[in-house]
């Protein structure tokens, strides 16, 4: 088997995640989908590092994880406070930007 399949898998996961972001209304689930996309990227990075035989890819994946962690913390906090304010975790309810 050619390890390039990892890349195909990553692409597939990424696409699924993206679709989830677009389809789901529940903010938490949307967030999960984002995480899924990030992980897909990580997988791609790792695979790349294996291809090129250097560790930079893994470094990037590492950083991605860190950033993802930070992002999740803040994002979830936001969701919680929004839920407190509006008793809803639906993305569509936060459509006040419309004129």
């Amino acid at each position, binding site marked *: 088997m050619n390890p390039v399949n990892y890349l195909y898998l990553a692409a597939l996961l990424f696409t699924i995640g*993206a679709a989830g972001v*677009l389809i789901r*209304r529940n903010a938490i689930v949307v967030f999960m989908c984002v995480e899924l996309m990030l992980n897909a990227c990580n997988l791609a990075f790792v695979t790349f590092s294996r291809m090129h035989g250097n560790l930079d890819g893994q470094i990037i994946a590492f950083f991605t994880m860190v950033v993802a962690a930070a992002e999740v913390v803040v994002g979830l906090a936001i969701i919680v406070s929004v839920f407190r304010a509006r008793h809803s975790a639906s993305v*569509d309810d*936060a*459509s006040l930007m*419309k*004129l």
Partner: protein
Amino acid sequence: MDNLIALLIAAPLLGALVLLLGGRRLDKSGHWLGTLLAAVSFVIGLVLFADMLGKSADDRALHQTLYTWIPVEGFQADMAFRLDQLSMTFVLLITGVGTLIHVYSIGYMEHDERRRRFFGYLNLFVAAMLLLVLADNYLLLYFGWEGVGLASYLLIGFWQHKPTAATAAKKAFLVNRVGDMGLSIAIMLMFTTFGTFAFGPVFEASGQASEGKLTAIGLMLLLAACGKSAQVPLQSWLGDAMEGPTPVSALIHAATMVTAGVYLIVRSADIFDAAPDAQLVVTVVGAVTLLFGAIVGCAKDDIKKALAGSTMSQIGYMILAAGLGPIGYVFAIMHLVTHGFFKAGLFLGAGSVMHGMNDEVDMRKYGGLRKYMPVTFVTFGLGYLAIIGFPGLSGFFSKDKIIEAAFAKGGTEGWILGAVTLLGAAITAYYMTRVMLMTFFGEKRWQPAPDADQAPSAEPAAEHAAGAMPHPHESPKSMVIPMILLAVGSVAAGAVFEFAGFVEWLEPVTGFEHGHSPVSAAAVTAATVAVMVIGVGLAYLQYGRRPVPVVAPRGSLLTRAARRDLLQDDFNHAVFVTGGTHLTRSLVYVDHSLVDGVVNGTAAAVGGLSGRLRKLQNGYARTYAVSMFGGTAVLIAATLLMRAV
């Protein structure tokens, strides 16, 4: 001496400024100041005249250049004056008659609280008229030309509270503007043809220009003359202009301003001499107006309107004469001057009559006034004899000469013109006799004075109690004296000119040649007298023998048409007023709905489009996410394609 010319104009101009800006404190003394300054101008005129007589006939012309008025590349209009015999004649006529009428107005306008302004306007007119006749180039002449137009506008509409007066004033100005169009186009033509419009150079070069150009210039000048001198087809304003105070009618609309057209044509003699076609048109216009005015004059019962018709017809004589070329110019001017005297006298007489009759203007309500206002009767009568050309009086000489010249034009035209002038003479005699009889003879047909408002012309004395029976009385001295002087003039002027050599006086300016009439001068004179007698006789039969009905009879078709100024106003109204109103209305509509509509339509379209686009921004994060995702996809596709290609 040259520098006096500017003073001629300056004096009355100063008067106008002082009187119009002076304010109420001049109400007491204003009219004296105005009269004085007019007289000053007259005196200066006399001085210059004396000086001029001292010189030899050829270098009598004086020039004065104050400064360059409009200096632009190749377009030089100077503030320059020329005083030659022609202008001198006019200067004396204007300032002389003008002064007399100032004096007359002192009495006539006594009761008008705006008398100061009236005199201011009169002075303004005198100044403008002097500028007109003294100008040394056509543009400056145009300045004076419009200046007198303004003065006449202000004076016709002097009683602005009367809608009729205001309308008449506006009408006069507008019709004159049409004429002015002709004048300005003529000036432009001169500029493009000769590169200048100063009298001297233009006349010098007029020989070299193509006849077509000259004809065009001539016709344009004629148009201007028609406007100012109330010639067909621009004659319609003169009748209405009688809304103005009678002194105005006498000075502006009889003696001086309306004759400016004649001055213009005679002044442009060199151009017309080189353009026979233009000359022919001039004579035709003169002939037509001559008859037109005469016919109108026969039908009017309003004494001033009748006189106005007569003025038109007399000016028709002058224009006709001016159109005859060198054989006629001199006589045109001569008739102009004599006419200035007797017509002014007649108007002043009419004014005096109205003054005595509670401003009644309908001759059918006069009658038998000769006993009550003898002086007016005598002066008016002398003027009457003069205008109908009673042998020995001024009108006789001048008109007789014109008729001769008309015949002398030669060919069929000569015969036709001669016949027309003779016919005109007969009609003149007829309607003037009619006026005379209806006013001063027969039994009294006086009526109680109508209210000042409905009065056909609310002259200042209209403060009479409405409904009071008029008790005619002779007018005050200030009014009588000018009438007497003018009467003297209208008696003597003709003879003086005849024997003191008016022809030789004007010849250096206008040129003169003896016309060779197919019929002998004596015959013409005899014919003139004969037709005059016939006219008088007819009028006597109609108005002297039978009593004059107070209410005008229905009259023949022609009479009724003539009462309506031969339907000219109806024509104008139908064509220009109504048509113009519709045009402007529709244009306003077009401007609002079409021109502006296109703009607003565009705006609306843009607004609608953006409104639709706004719907895309529904505020749902997921929608935006989709577009973003799709955009990314497109980008990737693009990059891939780039690679592929």
